[in-house]
């Protein structure tokens, strides 16, 4: 409430002070790639053209509004056409536009040229997170919003990169041509990074490509730009541009993590371990719809607390989580999560918030379910 | 004021006062046909275009529009020979009219004819009626309001004369 008051006062005062002015940006973000630089300049150019026309038109109009008032006794002239003038003001804008067409077309062609990349990353939009698959290095991971819910609800102070921070950023080496293959899993999303001037819709069932070459090491932030449902405003994009050696080190670390995850598959977990892991996985994947307290949102997203699925046979519960419910917003998490994570989430849902089933799922059961599904589809 | 919206005609011939009017039609038959066919062709073109790409569900809606156009054309066609006329000759007042497939004829005694013009409903057009023996007949269908007022005034003076 105090915050509301303060920002209200701030807005009313229109914040004239120099320090606050730092937040008033009047142009596109600072470009960090060649294409973005071109777009930046193209925008400045067209703004200049607009400004020129603006001055001419508005000068003429306001001169007339001032000089040709009836109250100063101006008598109306009676002309109502003049072919020469009309031809001139049709032709001149046309010439200006032809002049603009050339530089614009050049940038379009450059933007669309995705040939000879140094590396290729497949970007997949999900409701509501991104997945990056490095096709050359064989690594892949999800990237979730990492801003705590408390900051969004206003119970905690908002951090510097509020809503523009993720748990696992996309990492690319500096100065390399990165080709992006953009697609989506459920609905249309749009991968937008202003500093690189890349905005490419991810369309489920189709792959479209785009590219960028980052000029400088640094962290760049963007957001999903196509309405994709409830959490559309909460699926940011963070790209970390690093040096080549740093990039190689990051790749090696990622590969190591993948091996640890693979080792989980054979292990037998304790319930406490599953609950802890399950809570984390639940927060990252389920809580946006079913809420942190498992109560869902009446009419839109069903509750898990006390639900038939979470208190029924565990095999059915696993199936719902893995296969989703087609035709609703409930996605199939089988392809998205590891066996250990699915086992943990199911266990967590059955034993949290007053659900007291006491049973647990092991990664091996999930693997077995996967195998059965694969066999069933193979025999069909 | 000039008679702006109808091809109406009031004249004195051999002592008789004749008022005739028919709906104004600023297009010839050929132009009207062309206008409707042009619209239908526009719809048909889009329909074929999208259906050709597999999005055939535009067809029923384009069909609906073409149907509406055919209906509109038929309504216009049915009213082509509409007219109304009012003649004051001697002691007789004669009304004749045709509206769509209905036509009528009425004779009244000049002495008993009253002219009433009702403009009391805001936002509504005026209603101009001639009545005799408790029966009202509306006239001036194809006129604008101010032309109707003028006709009312003319009729009143003619009836009194």
């Amino acid at each position, binding site marked *: 409430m105090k915050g509301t008051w303060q920002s209200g006062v*701030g807005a009313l005062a229109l914040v004239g002070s120099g320090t606050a002015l730092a937040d008033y940006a009047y142009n596109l973000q600072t470009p960090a790639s060649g294409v973005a630089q071109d777009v930046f300049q193209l925008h400045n150019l067209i703004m200049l053209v607009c400004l020129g*026309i603006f001055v001419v038109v508005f000068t003429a109009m306001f001169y007339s509004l001032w000089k040709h008032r009836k109250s100063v006794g101006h008598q109306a002239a009676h002309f109502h056409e003049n072919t020469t003038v009309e031809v001139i003001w049709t032709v001149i804008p046309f010439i200006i536009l032809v002049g603009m067409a050339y530089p614009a077309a050049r*940038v379009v062609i450059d933007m669309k040229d995705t040939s000879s990349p140094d590396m290729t990353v497949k970007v997949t939009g999900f409701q509501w997170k991104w997945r990056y698959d490095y096709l050359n290095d064989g690594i892949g991971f999800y990237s979730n919003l990492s801003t705590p819910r408390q900051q969004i609800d206003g119970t905690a102070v908002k951090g510097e990169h*509020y809503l523009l921070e993720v748990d696992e950023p996309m990492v690319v080496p500096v100065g390399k041509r990165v080709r992006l293959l953009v697609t989506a899993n459920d*609905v249309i999303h749009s991968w937008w990074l202003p500093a690189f001037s890349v905005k490419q*819709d991810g369309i489920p069932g189709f792959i479209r490509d785009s590219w960028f070459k980052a000029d400088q090491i640094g962290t760049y932030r963007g957001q999903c730009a196509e309405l994709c449902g409830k959490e559309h*405003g909460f699926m940011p994009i963070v790209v970390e541009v690093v040096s080549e050696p740093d990039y190689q080190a990051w790749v090696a670390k990622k590969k190591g993590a993948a091996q640890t995850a693979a080792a989980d598959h054979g292990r037998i977990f304790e319930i406490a371990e599953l609950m802890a892991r399950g809570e984390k996985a639940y927060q990252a994947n389920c809580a946006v719809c079913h809420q942190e307290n498992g109560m869902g949102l009446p009419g839109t997203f069903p509750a898990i607390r006390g639900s038939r699925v979470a208190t029924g046979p565990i095999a059915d519960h696993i199936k719902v989580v893995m296969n989703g419910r087609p035709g609703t917003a409930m996605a199939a998490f089988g392809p998205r999560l590891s066996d250990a994570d699915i086992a943990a989430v199911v266990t967590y849902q059955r034993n949290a918030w007053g659900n007291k089933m006491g049973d647990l799922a092991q990664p091996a059961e999930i693997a077995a379910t996967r195998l059965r599904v694969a066999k069933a589809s193979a025999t069909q | 004021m000039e008679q702006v919206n109808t091809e109406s005609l009031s004249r004195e011939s051999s002592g008789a006062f004749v008022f005739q009017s028919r709906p104004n039609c600023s297009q010839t038959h050929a132009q009207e046909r062309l206008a409707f066919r042009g619209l239908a062709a526009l719809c048909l073109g889009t329909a074929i275009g999208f259906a050709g790409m597999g999005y055939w*569900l535009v067809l029923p809606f384009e069909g609906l529009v073409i149907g509406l156009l055919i209906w509109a054309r038929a309504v216009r066609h049915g009213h082509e020979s509409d007219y109304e006329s009012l003649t004051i000759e001697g002691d007789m007042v004669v009304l004749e009219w045709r509206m769509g497939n209905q036509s009528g004829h009425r004779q009244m005694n000049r002495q008993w004819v009253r002219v009433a013009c009702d403009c009391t409903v805001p936002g*509504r057009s005026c209603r101009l009626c001639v009545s005799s023996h408790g029966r009202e007949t509306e006239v001036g*269908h194809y006129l604008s309001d101010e032309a109707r007022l003028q006709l009312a005034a003319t009729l009143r003076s003619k009836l009194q004369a």
Partner: protein
Amino acid sequence: MSDAAHAHPGHHTHPTGIMRWLTTTNHKDIGTMYLWFALIMLFSAGSMALLIRTELFQPGLQLVHPDFFNQLTTMHGLIMIFGAIMPAFTGFANWQVPLMLGAPDMAFPRLNNWSFWLLPAAGLMLMSSFLLPGGAAAGGWTMYPPLFIQGGISYDLTILAVHIMGLSSIMGSINIITTILNMRAPGLTLMKMPMFCWTWLITAYLLIATMPVLAGAVTMLLTDRNFGTHFFNAAGGGDPVMFQHIFWFFGHPEVYILILPAFGIVSQIIPTFSRKPLFGYASMVYATASIAILSFIVWAHHMFAVGMPVAAQLFFMFSTMLIAVPTGVKVFNWVATMWKGSLTFETPMLFAIAFVCLFTIGGFSGLVLAMAPVDIQLQDTYYVVAHFHYVLVSGALFSIFAGIYYWLPKWTGHMYDERLGKLHFWLSVIGMNIVFFPMHFLGLAGMPRRIPDYALQFTEFNQIATVGAFIFGFSQLIFLTVVLKTIRGGAKAPARVWEGAEGLEWTVPSPAPYHTFEVAPVLSK
């Protein structure tokens, strides 16, 4: 001529109360109903906008849930476009077209009644969908699949409402086209018609060409949702992007459907208060027609970010830039009409001047967006929100205000309160710019549209915009006051309300025709 007493005794007495409005076939009554309906919808969708702006006053979620936020943006868009702006223009057409042409009524009065009464039904459906389980449709007014496939029953209801409003527009358009082509007074050739009639004639053609396409597109959404078809589902061999192509094939002409009648209204008002005929009438007509024709080949500029081949990207970029030429001609002609005139600044003229200035700014941002590479940066950001609100609020809506102030004395017989009118104008024009101008900067800085919460660097401009929104929103209550006051009384308006007004409609008494009759009807024998 009908023999009233013969067939229906008592038929001549006008029905009163609600029946009068339900059964009326009079173009003036229907025009009035369209305008009131539009005003009610303007206030409902406007309140949604204020809720949106309140939520966006500061970062974080304070007032509404993200899903409800999306419902608000979706319904704000649909209701403003189909419920407020389009019906308002149809209301103007109903009132003015017959008067301007010297016709007694519209060509098909009964059809006219039906096409109006479909609208409240559709409006009610849209508004009531908020009460359904899961709330109203939240997939954006553009209804893109697959997102729009996911929702509940209210999505089907929204599709049905769009169908009904489309049908209403089609019937209205057939009526307007037939009236304009067939019922012009003798001697009133097409090239002598008032500009307002011309712009509506062209608008009606656009509606007939595009509305069935929209109906088809949303029907395919409906069958994809409920009957297992796969028009837009990649898994079944369909293509979600094709919906966007079909939608914008409707949607871009729709943009001009929303602005051409505005051009018409402004082209009536500026000559009146400049006391000088419209400059370049013929070139205005040709410019309007070229805008309409070009509108069919620019649709994919709404979709630069979906990833089209280079050739398509270039084609749509060039064709979009081309639209600037006829639009420029119109602006230059308006300025030339004022040039060396004898200007006065009554409220209608003030709104018309604001229209020319601010619509031009919307045109500039349109030119910026036409550059495909720049559009890639600005697509789906607040820059686009700023752009289309400059065109639709200070464009379409301001022209509607201008038209109401201009013709209200004609319709009611009373002058409006000039002081209140000017107050409404200044608050609106200032409020409007405070809301929408900062949005350009938000878009440039990288704030996506349709988000309920935003990063901290966007806070300041959002706060300014919210303050402006409340100024703009609440100043519309002044407008309501002025309209109600004028209907109830005020100084008597003469037949030719404005000194410089030309045209048939001004030879008709004000209001057409109630008060003039003081001199006339004594029943004669």
